[in-house]
């Protein structure tokens, strides 16, 4: 039985297929003490690695916003004896995909390789994380690309809505920072600052690794020591400050000359380790998790107010949000908002037994549908480690979802769906909505 198959069984197809084996996600500890989760699967000659270093854009120094993202983007722009062109050429010749990016809490990397080129691929990874060059002409190019990217994002209604929401909900907290940086800061970042940031991020302390594919534990262990073994251990990192959720409703309108306005609603949710977490997952699904959801039915099917309307839970270490997203022509925004808000109120009264049963079936099965490739499995195993879940979480998930009762959903609905904590952002030219705060 291949790995994807037993993962899928564990993820809930037990409901429909006979459950044969438990998932075995191996933990590998290398001679140098690096830990990794591994699932072996030799059905394609491919290996995918998903890994991260435990410091991200939320730790950008003051007046250096964008530093971590810029640093991450430069890691594959030349290392050791190889300049940028030579490095890319080596990647292409060995068909290796290697990339880095910064999010709020970590710098993530992904490596995808053909198993025949394992040595070449892990050698490129070693060079990238231990001896990045930061050649000045590459720094200038990446800087210019990031600044252009910011300008473009500033014209995309959905990006502006997202940015405005984060800046509003997390005002005064590091999560409010834009991982892509601030133009004025990006313009002044220097090579020594980039090198300092690389040195503080690229350490073994807090390194998380997930590997999937055509590689066994001994070989993975050898390759991880090769790639990461030369990194310093690094010091413990200070925790980010606690977040104080909003306690007053706010609406922020951002004027943009677009025919369709982008709408986001955010509500403070519950922490990832809260006992009600799985009830909240069920709640978000019933609210706006697919074509059977209440929002899809009320906003799209019955009224044609939007093409896309959905809700999802997002969690970071210090905060989690329930977010609703949609887009409507300017003259329909007020109607969309009215319908969405009345659905949020209605959901406080609880869900039907049928809704609950259908949500459980879907949520138990749907994760298996995401196991499309080695890379997606590696990403899932990486996320579980970031979320500090146990290695047998995938075995237990179906049972955790299955145990959710209607009263649990109702309780968590009342904890989360509170109008007084709701932040609304509208980007475009909405008719009939008023802003309670300037962006």
């Amino acid at each position, binding site marked *: 039985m*291949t790995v*994807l*198959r037993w993962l*899928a*069984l564990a993820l*809930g*197809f037990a*409901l*429909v*297929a006979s459950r044969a084996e438990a998932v075995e996600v191996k933990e590998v500890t290398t001679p140098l003490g690096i830990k990794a989760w591994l699932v072996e*699967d030799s*059905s*394609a000659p*491919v290996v*995918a690695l998903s890994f991260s270093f435990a410091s991200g854009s939320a730790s950008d120094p003051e007046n250096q916003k964008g530093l971590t993202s810029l640093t991450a983007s430069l890691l594959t722009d030349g290392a050791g004896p190889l300049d*940028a*062109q030579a490095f*890319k*050429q080596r990647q*292409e*010749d060995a068909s290796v995909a290697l990339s880095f990016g910064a999010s709020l809490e970590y710098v993530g990397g992904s490596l995808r390789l*053909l198993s*025949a080129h394992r040595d070449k691929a892990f050698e490129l990874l070693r060079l990238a994380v231990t001896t990045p060059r930061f050649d000045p*002409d590459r720094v200038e*190019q990446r800087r*210019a690309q990031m600044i*252009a990217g910011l*300008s*473009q994002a500033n*014209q995309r*209604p959905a990006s502006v809505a997202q940015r405005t929401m984060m800046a509003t909900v997390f005002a005064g907290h590091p999560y409010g920072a834009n991982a892509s940086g601030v133009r004025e800061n990006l313009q002044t970042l220097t090579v020594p600052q980039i090198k300092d940031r690389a040195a503080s991020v690229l350490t073994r302390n807090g390194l998380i690794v997930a590997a999937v*594919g055509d590689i066994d534990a001994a070989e993975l262990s050898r390759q991880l020591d090769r790639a990461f073994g030369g990194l310093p251990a690094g010091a413990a990192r200070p925790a980010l400050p606690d977040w104080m959720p909003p306690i007053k409703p706010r609406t922020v309108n951002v004027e943009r*000359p*677009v*025919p*369709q306005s982008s709408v986001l609603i955010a509500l403070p949710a519950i922490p990832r380790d809260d006992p009600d977490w799985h009830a909240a997952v069920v709640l978000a699904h019933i609210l706006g998790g*697919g*074509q*059977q959801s209440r929002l899809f*039915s009320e906003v799209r*099917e*019955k*009224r*044609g*107010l*939007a*093409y*896309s309307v959905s809700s999802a839970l997002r969690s970071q270490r210090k905060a989690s949000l329930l977010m609703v997203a949609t*887009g*409507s*022509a300017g003259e329909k925004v007020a109607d969309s908002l009215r319908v969405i808000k009345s659905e949020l109120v209605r959901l406080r009264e609880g869900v039907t037994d049928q809704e609950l049963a259908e949500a459980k079936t*879907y949520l*138990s*099965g*749907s994760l*298996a*549908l995401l*196991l*499309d*490739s080695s890379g997606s499995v590696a990403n899932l195993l990486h996320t579980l480690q970031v979320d500090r879940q146990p290695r047998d979480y995938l075995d237990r998930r179906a049972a955790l979802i299955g145990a959710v009762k209607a009263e649990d959903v109702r309780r968590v609905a009342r904890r989360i769906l509170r109008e007084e904590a709701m932040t609304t952002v509208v980007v475009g030219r909405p008719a009939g909505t008023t802003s309670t705060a300037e962006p």
Partner: protein
Amino acid sequence: MRRRAALGGLFAGALLTPRASALAGLLRVNRRPSEAFTLPNGLQVVVLPSSRAPIVTQVLVYKVGSADETYGHTGIAHFLEHMMFKGTGALAATEFSRTVARNGGRDNAFTDFDMTGYHQTIASDRLELVMRMEADRMINLRILDGELRPERQVVLEERRMRVDNVPSEMLDEAVREQLFGLHKPYAMPTAGYADDVKKLSVGDLTAFYRRFYAPNNAVLIVAGDTTAEAVRKLAERHYQPIPSRRVEPRQRPAEGGADLPQRVIRADARVPEPRWNRDFLAPSYRGGETRHAHALLVLTRLFGGSETSRLSRALVAQDKIALSATSGYGATALGLTSFEIAVQPARGRSVVEVETAVGDQMKRVLDGGVTAEEVERAQNQLLASAIYSQDSLASGPRLYGNALSTGGSIAELDNWPQAIAAVRPEDVVAAARHVWRDAGAVTSLLTPAEGWK
């Protein structure tokens, strides 16, 4: 112009004498087996067994898309795709997707110029359920005015989101109108012109459905944890009873726009930085001088397919004229397609500088040729991407659906790696010479409101 990804290929066993060892290694990877048959009513069936996960994907692709519409009725193929979820005699509106979700699966659909596809992924023991529902709506769709009216608003919102809110997509529509000729196939937008979508009636949609939705005008692909025998049995039970119907062969123009070259400029207050594009009419696997198709895939890789390609080295790394410089080409189409060059200029660089630099690089290919090493590197990349596609459960059905609904065959897919490996440097130059002509070009500028010097 926004492109779909180039056609990849699954792998055949060792063949041909590869010129280089890296290429030989890539060619030796075994392809995943496919099994194919055709039902007596003309439905073509492809089965791609894979036991990696206990799930199956059913994809039903109809050989009809927005390029089969007529001006005044644009958007009909896409609107019909939405209405396919609105019920049959047996199934109430929205029950299709609700049933799939209730059984732990997910479903969706897509419309393109040459095809319309419907797909579900679900536990393998639920294959019959989705097959029964998919067969039902092939013949029993019921389009009601009460369902059509709110859905029209949804379709218009989708157009606003995908096109009207995105300046580059609006420019893309204008470029296509020039490149393929106003009101002609591939020039009319898949989302439809809003004025047309507002007028489409139950009668229009029903007539289009009756004309094109038939078993002999469709391809069924089932991938995942099943066997050809199991699929055959289910397909005979559910699809076989649907009678075939005469469907007129599809026509695609042999020529593009009448008045090329053209320049199209869109100055838009929503655009922060200018972009420069040049699109050339190009042959596909099926339209125009098809013998150039594989060489064009190699050309686009080595010319603008990565950061080590010629365009990127010259314009981005050396001369710092551009922040990015790329090319794109996809060969899967029933008619003509396009070869695109796209440049995001560095701040303060002029249109003339960009055009001169791109022109210089094109001239170097045409006059100076390409090296055997460059060609081999591009071939390696193309073959490696096809190996990576084997690692994904979704890519097989996509590949077969695209190819078989645009006149391709399974034999061609099987032979794809060899066809790529056989491309020689002189073929690449000949393909470039064929495509890079002023008489087939549209240059387009997307600029801020104040323009671009």
